[in-house]
């Protein structure tokens, strides 16, 4: 039995398509893309964009170890609701995803419980301790798509050099969390006027920028592909831009909260405005948008970091870092980037699909073509809705966007031809 998505506006970045087109799906595969197609079952996509399933190369699904925050199953449901069909969960679970057995565990749990594709990252050092390199060749063989100690930087420049040389040999990208530990120590928000006023210990922008610079310099030294995660500052963006101009193999991402919010969101001591790196200032927010506009930013990624209500409903300084983002990301991109005219809808789709897929070499992700997998997102870019964290499919509710009225709503998500979310 075939399924036909009719009357939608297809956006497919790899083929440069942005026009009304029908998509015919047969089983788990896209059979045809064209005009006036027919099929057994018709799915009407009037007023909607039809695009490849979204890709997020930076999520935390917390399994194993912290299943009350999120599981691979619940994270998958949240991803599907956000229009994502492929995600890359980070390795900072308990135990850490630092050996082939752990990657296989995640793959098995994904196969058994997740409604979308889960392509795990493995840690770059054993136990994320920053001391010994993981068995990257075997990790890659069993399906790890990147190495990263996300949540931490690798303090020793000498070890990082070895990590990058080895990752280059194996052919895995290194996803870099950039943070000078000593400079950031004890900080809970951006260091600046707001932190001074609120009396909250700050994390200076330099803590991030110093390590963006160092990590890029070691990328240059080794020729490895370094992907800078969550760039948040004006100068950090400038460093990445200069490195790209120089031809260094570096890519970068940023997340919705960094183009939507500033450290002003911490006023009132909301722990849902606490994440690492922290929300910065208005000039940084504008520079992040500029980086998205001029192509310095290669992909948008949520850093979906679930924490339970109990963990977050505490004193600001005791609360863990991190916010959820999968279920609101598309709306933030439409509302914060497309509607104000910073980027086109086509570019937004590219940044949310192909951008991340290329970084982690996710061959079939981020494309919608005949003969390819039927991973498809259908969203209404004009639909207005109000974020209600209470209705999230994620197990966690820690969103800084709760209560915000936004535009851009996912209507249906298909993964391998199966409807995994319908709104």
């Amino acid at each position, binding site marked *: 039995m075939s399924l036909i998505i009719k009357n939608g506006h297809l956006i497919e970045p790899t083929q440069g398509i942005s026009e009304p087109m029908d998509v015919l799906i047969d089983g788990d595969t896209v059979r045809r893309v064209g005009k006036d197609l027919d099929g057994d079952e018709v799915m009407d996509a009037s007023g909607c964009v039809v695009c490849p399933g979204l890709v997020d190369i930076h999520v935390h699904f917390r399994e194993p170890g912290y299943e009350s925050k999120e599981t691979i199953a619940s994270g998958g449901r949240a991803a599907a609701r956000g229009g994502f069909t492929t995600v890359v969960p980070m390795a900072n679970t308990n135990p850490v995803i630092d050996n082939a057995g752990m990657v296989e565990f995640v793959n098995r749990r994904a196969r058994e419980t997740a409604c979308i594709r889960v392509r795990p990252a493995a840690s770059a050092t054993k136990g994320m301790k920053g001391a010994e390199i993981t068995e990257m060749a075997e990790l890659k063989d069993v399906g790890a798509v990147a190495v990263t100690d996300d949540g931490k930087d690798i303090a020793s420049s000498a070890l990082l050099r070895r990590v990058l040389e080895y990752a280059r040999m194996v052919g895995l990208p290194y996803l870099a969390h950039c943070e000078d530990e000593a400079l950031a120590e004890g900080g809970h928000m951006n260091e600046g*006027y707001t932190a*001074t006023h*609120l*009396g909250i210990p700050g994390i200076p922008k330099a803590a991030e920028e110093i390590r963006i610079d160092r990590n890029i310099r070691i990328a240059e030294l080794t020729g490895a592909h370094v992907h800078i995660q969550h760039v948040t500052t004006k100068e950090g963006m400038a460093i990445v831009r200069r490195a790209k101009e120089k031809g260094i193999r570096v890519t970068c991402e940023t997340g919705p909260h960094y183009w939507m919010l500033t450290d002003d969101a911490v006023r*009132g001591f909301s722990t849902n405005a606490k994440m690492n790196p922290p929300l910065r200032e208005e000039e940084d927010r504008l520079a992040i948008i500029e980086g998205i506009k001029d192509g310095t930013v290669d992909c948008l990624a949520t850093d979906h970091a679930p924490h339970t209500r109990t963990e977050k409903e*505490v*004193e600001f*300084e005791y609360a863990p870092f991190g916010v959820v983002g999968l279920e609101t990301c598309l709306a933030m991109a439409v509302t914060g980037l497309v509607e104000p005219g910073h980027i086109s809808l086509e570019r937004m789709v590219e940044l949310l699909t192909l951008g991340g897929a290329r970084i982690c070499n996710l061959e079939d992700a981020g494309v919608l073509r005949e003969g390819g997998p039927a991973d498809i997102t259908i969203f209404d870019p004009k639909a207005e809705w109000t974020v209600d964290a209470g209705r999230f499919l994620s197990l966690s509710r820690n969103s800084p966007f709760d209560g915000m009225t936004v535009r851009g709503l996912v209507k249906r998500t298909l993964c391998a031809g199966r409807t995994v979310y319908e709104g």
Partner: protein
Amino acid sequence: MGEATRTVWTRKDLIGIDGLGRDELELILDTAPQFAGVSARKSGIKRVPLLQGRLVVNWFHEPSTRTRTSFELAAKRLSADTLGIAASTSSSVKGETLHDTLSNIEAMHADVIVLRHGCAGAPHILAAAHESHIVNAGDGRHEHPTQALLDAFTMREHIRRVREDPEATLDGVKVTLLGDITHSRVARSDIMCLNALGAEVTLCGPATLLPMEIERMGVRVTYDLREAVHEADVLYALRIQLERQKAGLFPSLREYIRLFRLDNESLKHAPEHALIMHPGPINRDIELAAEVADGPRSVILEQVTNGVAIRMAILHLLVNGG
């Protein structure tokens, strides 16, 4: 001619100076003298029945002698019942959340919660989610509003006495805060309170103990003690925590003393009338030389006396309105 509108206290809590209007600050200051009179009664009973039958809970997450005692006395002189809860460890370490602890206290029908906590914003998150009146007795490095009010009250009373003008205000009064601004909740509340009341604030301390962009709070900053004391009407020394030296924030006590201590030598550059203040407890001969702390310009013990009156005024306004 219309009558001036009388300010009425309508807030449930006193969680900070931030956000309070000048009229509200002055209402508190103007309410205090009657309570100063209660404490100063030479004969009879140092007590009024304004909070009779009410329960005031002093919930202190950090050690405190002065502030806790002051609040306890204030409550007792208003005839309230008082209960002290000392939590030496953080709620998260104990395993009970701040909200749960307060819900338990409230289940015993407390009226006013006086909270001292090591984290900025602790009273703010409680005030937003609970019914009882919350008084911030110091939250992390953020605010210490009752200290700022008693400081402003002490300055104003002194100026009124010296100028023989019972209506004198703090407009144009020059106040210099000295020492560790970064870690000081007193400094932040004092800056906001004094600015709101029309005073001009100068900060002076080592660069390592002045937080980023503090000027934007409406203060002048200098590292030069002579310049800082020159023309000051009030010299307010903050307590320097000795562990800051071990954390590498200044090289030695010797150098701190050389650059920032208020003593007879540095006071030579200050006007004759400059008042000496300190929130206590004093590190004698470190931020403040003994001869200055005990000298004729010092109003440090007046601050302590006024603290009880200000806290009585605040408890009264919160519970009874005004």
